[in-house]
């Protein structure tokens, strides 16, 4: 269903910005219209199928270095809500916010889709997932059931600000996933596979082979043992390494964590040696088709590539206009919001670990006894400490991955771990997963990942 845009919307937003310009340092108004579809299978049954339409907007006002923010979903309220945002910013009573200067932009960014979700019928979407779901159900024992989902969202976003920016962007996000569940020895095991795209609703990453792999691993997990708790040399696959880069380094590089925190500023000093010399980590909006692909961020800043770690040293961080202003650096196009309900905050786009020099074989070579950890089932960090659960793990003996292990949780100190990297594979593999990133109550935000295999010594593995 297409929603007709408010015909005078762009002029209206520009007018409000012009009229209120003199009452504040900065004013921006976003309006978003979106259509979305989501569906889920539980076992063989299509359990839910929902369609949504939404329209809403938000206003952010800066007065004497302090923010006010309002959101609404009646467009007629835009004048009133803009005035309310200014009143609130006044109430805060002054603050240190100084936006880094950026050029005003006037641009239209139409969606450049390979397959538009709007071109697929509801039936197409349902049948695509049903087929993948059926593979899981046909696998047989010990897999007892499945869950599968698909979700897409198409949005049109207007941005106007008091500096003269007038921007219209179309965006899409598509994701799907399947999970196999198996019961064995009184335990339930679950393995999942998911993928996503910002351009292709046919989701070419969602293949029969990927689904079968998840089934085989789930099968194996029912017989698998837990590892003994302790410290291991660990090889992590590109998917887990990508999540590690995102959780442990990406979040630390978000400048809002840094700019008012003197201790973090000290640790995250540009030039600080954070990792082994071969380590390169960057965040980019430029990967075509990635869920983190972005032309302009929510502040109208071009979203390019931001290098975070190069040669093992910290070389940059992720910025909004506010954090760049505070640190005297350049905005990187990382101000993002999940919807008009939230103000833009510093977020990642697609976060990559660059390739190193070891062949895949060399990464494993010489490990007497270690663990090969594959994919992530979630993780958490609190700056210094991280905890990740591997999807599955294999015991490495004399450089060869063998026995499958379940419930493998990796924990450690991020800064120590970055220096304990012993080998980086010579190729970076991108991965696009479903779900998304959460921060400041805004989840899930679509992001992308990419990494090579990494070998890390002395990683602590939890267990009984």
């Amino acid at each position, binding site marked *: 269903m297409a929603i007709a845009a408010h015909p005078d919307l762009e002029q209206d937003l520009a007018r409000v910005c012009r009229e209120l310009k003199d009452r504040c340092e900065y004013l921006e108004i976003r309006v978003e219209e979106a259509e979305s579809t989501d569906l889920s299978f539980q076992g063989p049954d299509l359990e839910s199928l929902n369609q*949504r*339409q939404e329209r809403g907007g938000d206003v952010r006002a800066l007065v004497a270095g302090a*923010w006010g*923010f309002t959101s609404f979903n009646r467009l007629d309220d835009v004048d009133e809500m803009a005035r309310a945002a200014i009143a609130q910013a006044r109430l805060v009573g002054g603050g240190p916010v100084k936006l880094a200067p950026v050029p005003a932009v006037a641009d239209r960014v139409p969606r450049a889709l390979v397959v538009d979700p709007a071109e697929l019928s509801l039936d197409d979407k349902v049948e695509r997932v049903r087929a993948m779901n059926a593979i899981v159900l046909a696998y047989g024992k010990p897999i007892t059931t499945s869950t599968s989902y698909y979700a897409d969202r198409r949005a049109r976003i207007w941005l106007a600000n008091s500096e003269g920016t007038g921007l219209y962007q179309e965006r899409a996000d598509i994701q799907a996933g399947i999970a196999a569940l198996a019961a064995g020895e009184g335990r339930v095991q679950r393995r999942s596979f998911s993928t996503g795209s910002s351009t292709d609703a046919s989701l070419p990453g969602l293949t029969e082979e990927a689904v079968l792999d998840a089934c085989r691993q789930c099968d194996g997990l029912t017989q698998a043992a837990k590892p003994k708790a302790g410290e291991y040399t660990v090889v992590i696959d590109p998917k887990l390494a990508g999540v590690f880069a995102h959780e442990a380094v990406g979040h630390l590089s978000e400048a809002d964590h840094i700019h008012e925190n003197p*201790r973090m500023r000290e640790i995250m000093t540009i030039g600080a040696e954070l990792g082994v010399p071969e380590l390169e980590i960057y965040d980019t909006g430029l990967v075509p088709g990635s869920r983190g692909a972005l032309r302009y961020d929510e502040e109208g800043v071009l979203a390019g590539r931001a290098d975070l770690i190069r040669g093992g040293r910290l070389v940059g961080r992720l910025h909004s206009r506010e954090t760049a202003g505070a640190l005297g650096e350049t905005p990187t196009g990382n101000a993002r919001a999940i919807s008009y309900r939230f103000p833009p905050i510093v977020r990642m786009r697609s976060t990559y670990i660059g390739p190193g020099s070891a062949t895949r074989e060399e990464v494993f070579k010489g490990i007497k006894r270690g663990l090969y950890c594959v994919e992530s089932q979630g993780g958490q960090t609190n700056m210094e400490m991280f905890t990740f659960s591997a999807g599955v793990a294999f015991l490495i003996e004399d450089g060869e991955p063998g026995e499958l292990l379940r*419930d493998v*949780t990796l924990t450690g100190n991020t*800064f120590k771990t970055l220096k304990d990297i012993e080998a980086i594979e010579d190729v970076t593999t991108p991965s696009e997963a479903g779900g998304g990133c959460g921060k400041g109550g805004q989840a899930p935000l679509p992001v992308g990942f990419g990494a090579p295999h990494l070998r890390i010594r002395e990683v602590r593995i*939890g267990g009984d």
Partner: protein
Amino acid sequence: MATEAAIGADLVEAALEHARRLGADQAEAFYTESTSDSVDYENNRLAGIDSSSSRGIGIRVLAGGRVGFSSTSILDRVEDAVEAALQTARLTEVEKRPFSLPAGGSIDADISDREVEAISVGELVEMGRQAVDRLQPLADGLLAGAGAGRAVATVRIGNSAGLRSSCRRSSWSFFALAQRVQGTSVLWCYDGGASMHRDLDVDGAIEGASEKVRLSLKEGRLETGRRPVVFTPAALAALLASLYGAVSAPAIYRKTSPLTGRLGEQVLSPMLSIEDDNRPEAGRAGAPFDEEGVAAFAFPIVEHGVFRNVVADLRFAARLDVAPGRGRRSGYASAPFPGAGNWAMAPGTTPLEELMSEAEGGLLVDSLLGMHGSNLANGDFSANIGLGFAIGAGGEIQFRVKDAAIAGNFYELLGDRLLGLSAERRWGYSGTELLPSALCADVAIT
């Protein structure tokens, strides 16, 4: 405002009428409108004020035994949303155990606490400022934060069986947070709460976070091994995520819960009793009716360790032949799903002080990191200890334990290994859980 109420009621009628005309067998419209204000302190200062107004409608239809759902915030296009809902109902499965939307028990309630509604943005600002002013001086390099918010929401449910209910309610929340980074060590101390009423103890939350900071000034490490652990109500709430999942009807229905087929069986320690109550007086998750319009009530989830009841909405109640009444939504754009009400765990008889002295040589755990990566389906977990303290002789807190992790199984921990529950209880941060502290034996610390 009367006009706003009329708009909501009219939209519900218009949606139901359109669904009837298009041939839906049953239809339900769920309309919400809400306003909220919140203030956010970060790094010792007021970072911003956020106000939101929101309205929208969700439409569920049953046609030919199939369920469809759609929602919109574009209120002049409610008819489109009804059509979209019917479109989805062409494709979903025929419900094997059909359910009927409730006909009776229409309620129009206003349980909003005028004192909560009257909390001004200025007052919210002042509460946060107090937190920052009191936390910041406690240690060098400490960064204080706080959040305070107030919301008023009206929910309106109508269905083709004749139910017309509405409820207007208020809620508010407050938290205080202290954070300190030293070298590569990060300390987070958090306290707070949420309530429908003015009773929230702002001063107590600030003092709670302050006390955690004071206790954390001395740090040390513990050797790996099995030790007694006292879980604070906040940590116990994190552990209970396992049980929320396990007693939820979809997990039972799909046999992914370890409690499948175990109603009436002893699954946890006889010391443990949990009641689920979604009535207004029972906590912040309370209202006169659930989000499918079923009148609120209380029932036991676990009684002396025996699994008593499944948490179900209308659809899963029919599938499992159990009682409905726990239909939840995450806003107008969400189809109903089963969700628990307020949980109250029966207290123990031992004073907390005594539990602590029984745990000599062990740990007091207040927060866990990484719980969501654990295998909740089995109850197995492995998590970093975010904030934990070594317990010395007489239950005295010795120091904050750094770099430690904890592992175990929920059903073991709150089964055979549960040694005692404190006589004192407190509300969890969400205002929906009233819990004691729990002492468990032989917990693996790595």
